[in-house]
């Protein structure tokens, strides 16, 4: 009996508490930087595309919504010829971001992607590619990778030693 009255009183007193609802279009909720929203493709600090078209994201994607085609430019740098994400299928799990070896594909704190036409949810590479490095400034995959490309030979990457000549007898 007393507990019932106490319950009623407690509920009544919640009247004077601040409401938790965020009135969305007028007020914006705070989204943490690692929020898993709209996907982008980033560029390295030199402005080159980070994506090396390794297909790891497409393989990791549980709903198979990433499609891409690898290509290679004259310097030997790999890049995707097209890169397509079907956001009507994407579940924003972030596995693609985890799989990516070059920090190219990233999820961003943006969820306002509503469309009236379903086809518009298919984003092409020019929709995905942004001009900056996204969440990982300063990382340049080809500067740290051992792969030789045009303008950078083996052993010339950052923190890399010149390759060992295995045929030499010197220690």
């Amino acid at each position, binding site marked *: 009996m007393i507990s*019932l009255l106490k*319950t*009623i009183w*407690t*509920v*009544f007193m*919640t*009247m004077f*508490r*601040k*409401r*938790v*609802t965020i*009135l969305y279009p007028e007020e914006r909720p705070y989204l943490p930087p690692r929020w898993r929203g709209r996907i982008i493709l980033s560029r390295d600090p030199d402005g080159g595309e980070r994506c090396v078209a390794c297909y790891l994201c497409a393989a990791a994607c549980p709903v198979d919504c990433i499609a891409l085609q690898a290509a290679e430019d004259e310097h030997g740098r790999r890049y995707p010829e097209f890169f397509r994400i079907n956001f009507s299928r994407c579940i924003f799990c972030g596995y693609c971001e985890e799989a990516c070896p070059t920090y190219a594909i990233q999820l961003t704190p943006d969820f306002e992607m509503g469309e009236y036409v379903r086809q518009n949810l298919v984003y092409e590479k020019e929709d995905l590619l942004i001009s900056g490095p996204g969440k990982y400034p300063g990382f340049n995959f080809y500067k740290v990778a051992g792969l030789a490309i045009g303008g950078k030979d083996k052993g010339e990457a950052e923190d890399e030693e010149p390759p060992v000549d295995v045929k030499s007898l010197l220690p």
Partner: protein
Amino acid sequence: MSQPILQLIILFSILIVVLAIGGMLIWLERRLLALWQDRYGPNRVGPFGLFQVVADMIKVFTKEDWIPPFADRSVFIIAPAVIVVVVLMSFAVIPFAPGIEVVDLNIGLLFFLAMSSLGVYSVALAGWASDSKYSLLGGLRASAQMLSYEVFMGLSLMGVVMLAGSFNLREIVEAQRHRWFVMPQFIGFVVFFIAGIAETHRLPFDLPEAESELVAGYHSEYSGMKFGMFFVGEYLGITLISALVSGLFFGGWLGPVLPPLAWFLIKTFVFICFFILLRASLARPRYDQLMAFGWKVMLPLSLANLVVTGAIVLMKR
């Protein structure tokens, strides 16, 4: 002005006002529940979401009005109308303010009790006519619940009747000029209010429609405006019980400064809010608990109240 025309004007304005209140309660309940749950509730349509009622009405009127092929057609259609009609009939005897009432019935209170007993037909018939097991269970529960709570709903009011010496609601209000009946009749008030909740089958006594057990209870099979009628009936029932509580125990229209009608509406409004507060805070009891509570606690309590009040009234003579 001639008397009959005045009567008609009063009648229709009461009808319209009561129905409008019933409609606005949908909005009020949602807003208040939201307030007590740290939310906002409907606040988009119009100022403070007031036009939500209009939107809901348009929606409920344009819904497909479906009658299941296995249902008992005529009863199925009549059932939702019954509840609205009987509740509206009860409003006929409520004195809103001096002169503002439909009939000045000398057995007003008995008339109300009779009408609220008829209300059980609506729910029971709806459960029966739907021909679905959940509806039937809801209807069964409703009839048992409403019948048993009716017993002491009437008994709890007898104390008031004794003190006022009348069944006429206007005279009962007049008798409270010096002292509200809630003071000598506190037990009667509590019992009547609890019985009122059970009669309108509101939470926490909403076992007939217990959505966690019975889908939607007796109105599982209803859609469109027929479902809407049950809802309007329920909200009208809340208004009716609140109006009666304020009239029988809290001095109705009596009060200083403000005009009588305003006092009546304010008191009624407070009790409507209390109804909603109960919904926001209390959990639904088990069915056997409900029955045991009714027969083992409430009935003896109201009987004791009756005997003691009677003795005191006799002694004072």
